[in-house]
């Protein structure tokens, strides 16, 4: 194969990277999705050297989370206009927790400004939020729903609804969206809670029962939420939901169990941030059994059990589960994963469909990291810089 087309998507970007090998040179073309991008050609002493560089660059990109543009993960499926599973990803890296979404389902996110005419064609996803004492979330959303752009909106982002009152819940926003669901006839993706710690601590965010959204939007493909307190899906049923992402500092055992009895036959991407007991995350690995049994979501391709205190327990059980043989991506990142869990993951099946495992942000030692790297699976074992040696990320104040 002399050509590879890769793509990357997360909460901050949506980009492509293509490489073509021609004799003793290779050309890389890369840029933001939807643009021409830019090309760079490099020549080598011989064909072998060019080939080697070609393979090396691809391996580097894959390690960073790029996937083949025509892979099941990235392709848009039969419907043609369906969202690629790749677009369901929340944040990849630890540091992105403190960023508001720059992209959502691969589209640019912008704060809604009623003074400006919204972009047509659903190209931009608008965010509605209350900043400090400016309680704009509901008024701006109401304004947007009356524009023609609403009918074209594929995705919508609800930011900090609470403004100054950190205990405010999103019931009013949910009700408004549901009441006006006919105005949002193209809507496929909702992000309820694009809120960073400066706006409201993740553990302070009050969520709500999101069942009304599932009922009002039968064409919904992705529901992403942030905040665990009071989050519920009392009727976990939806025929076409393909992605469910629940970011939190702690998901209640009851919530996790409700996912364990869900009827989401189309689900391909499931991401649960299980959190810590301190913030209400009182689930255990036993609550995950219905999910891990593999009987629940026949189309699942990505499973993320992230930000979890008991990642070692999950690792020990998940390697034996029927599910792990069937999915493409397993994500245990942002968790307290130690050598015990790392050693368990050495038993991951390598003969199934599993291709990517993310263990970004972990507490593994070099020894176990080395053993894991020998697995014939793409593993992300990166750590944010502050988890490396102490002194390197302590800075010295420069007198100015």
């Amino acid at each position, binding site marked *: 194969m002399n050509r590879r087309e890769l793509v990357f998507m997360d909460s901050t970007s949506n980009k492509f990277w293509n490489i073509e090998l021609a004799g003793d040179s290779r050309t890389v073309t890369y840029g933001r999705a939807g643009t021409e991008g830019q090309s760079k050609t490099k020549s080598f002493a011989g064909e072998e050297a060019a080939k080697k560089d070609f393979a090396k660059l691809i391996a580097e990109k894959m390690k960073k989370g790029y996937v083949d543009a025509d892979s099941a993960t990235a392709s848009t499926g039969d419907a043609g206009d369906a969202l690629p599973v790749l677009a369901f990803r929340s944040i990849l890296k630890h540091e992105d927790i403190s960023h508001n979404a720059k992209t959502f389902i691969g589209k640019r996110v912008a*704060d809604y400004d009623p003074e400006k005419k919204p972009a047509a064609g659903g190209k931009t996803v608008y965010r509605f939020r209350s900043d*400090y004492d400016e309680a704009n979330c509901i008024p701006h959303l109401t304004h947007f729903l009356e524009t023609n752009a609403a009918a074209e909106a594929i995705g919508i982002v609800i930011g900090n609804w609470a403004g*100054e009152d950190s205990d405010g819940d999103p019931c009013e926003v949910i009700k408004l969206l549901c009441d006006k669901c006919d105005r949002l006839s193209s809507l496929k993706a909702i992000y309820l809670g694009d809120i960073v710690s*400066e706006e409201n601590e993740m553990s302070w965010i009050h969520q709500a029962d999101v069942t009304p959204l599932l009922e009002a939007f039968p064409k919904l493909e992705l529901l992403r939420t942030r905040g665990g307190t009071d989050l519920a899906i009392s009727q976990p049923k939806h025929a076409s939901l393909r992605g469910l992402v629940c970011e939190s500092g702690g998901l209640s055992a009851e919530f996790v169990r409700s996912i364990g009895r869900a009827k989401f036959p189309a689900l391909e991407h499931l991401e649960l941030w299980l959190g810590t007991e301190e913030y209400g995350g009182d689930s255990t690995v036993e609550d995950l059994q219905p999910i891990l049994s593999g009987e629940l979501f026949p189309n699942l391709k990505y499973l993320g059990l992230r930000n979890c205190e008991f990642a070692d327990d999950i690792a020990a059980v998940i390697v034996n589960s029927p599910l792990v043989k069937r999915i493409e991506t397993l994500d245990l990142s942002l968790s307290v994963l130690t050598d015990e869990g790392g050693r368990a993951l050495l038993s991951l099946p390598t003969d199934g469909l599993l291709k990517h495992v993310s263990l970004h942000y972990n507490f593994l030692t070099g020894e176990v990291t080395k053993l894991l790297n020998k697995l014939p699976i793409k593993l992300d074992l990166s750590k944010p810089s502050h988890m490396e040696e102490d002194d390197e*990320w*302590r*800075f010295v*104040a*420069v007198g100015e």
Partner: protein
Amino acid sequence: MSFRQQAHWILGDPQSRRVSDYRETALQFGLPAPRCIDWIDVIKEGADLLNCISVDSRLRIDSFGQRTDVIAALISHGDGLEFPQVGQILSLDHQYSGLSRILRVLNDWSISRPDVELDQQPSEIEVMFDKWATHRRFATHGELRSHRPQTTLLPIEPSAFWDSLQPFVQSCGGRVFVKPRYASSASGVCYFRVCNGRQQLIAPIEIDRNLGRVRLFNSLLVRSYTSPRDIQDIFSVLAPQGMIAEAAVNKARVDGDRFDFRVVVINGKADHVVARQSTSPITNLHLGNARASLHRVEEAVGADRVQDCRQLALRAADLFPGALYCGVDILLPRTGSPLVCEVNAFGDFLPGLIADGRSVYQAILNSSRRCREALF
């Protein structure tokens, strides 16, 4: 004597990029290479050392930098007995006392050497380095008082500190910045929020607890603390070193992120402006935050409002007539007029920033205080 022949001297850290960049700029201008006097020597040996400066020279006082030996020497000079490990936030008050003593000596020396042209008078640096003194200077100039965020000077005694901070936070709507009185860059800067009886503190600080002793370190990772114990511990270390609190302002956004401005005012001109964009409330550039394109910022908030910020920076810098240049931090709220936050004596190190075809150092070398004073 012509500008081209004037000898240039720097009091700074000879190993720093600040000094090497400045030297390079001077050489590009065809000036003789500036000679650097190491802070450590002046701290240890006093002003006599400066007598090596040739007649009619120009002297730039630059940052004392971040070298452990220099910091320790300043602290000892300020009668401090505790010395920070690399990155530790400790003895800021003694460090300032030491700096302040040296600056006074420099001031006396400069009076005895009127032939030497100083870019910044040491007494001005002394004020700029002390956020209380800066605040008082603003407070005594009525027209700027209304362009300051609501501010309070906090007592150093821990219980009085809390008694003073709590009502202040309430009066500011629940969100404030609590900053060390003497530190610079983002060191020790805390975004503190009280909401529905809960507390939140976001800061580039790492807490290190060992055998019951709490130490704070500057961290490149901006963390969020919500446990009252952590917050109490952070303030118990910072408060005795001196602090100031100001109301957190709902800053304007560009591309969804907050930003503020660092304006380097040089010789009465506010050409050099950097918009510092950040997803966290702490916007200092060295924490990995991006410089936003000024063009994007103007698009987002309107060129007029950016112009207002430059104007305000100029007015703030006018309060420091003894300084040829200074770095002024300007906040632009979502709505309403800009606010001036702090003035940094050594806030001119912005490599790569070009305005009107000139870098900051080029612009500084191109002006001189003697000419500026002539304008007044």
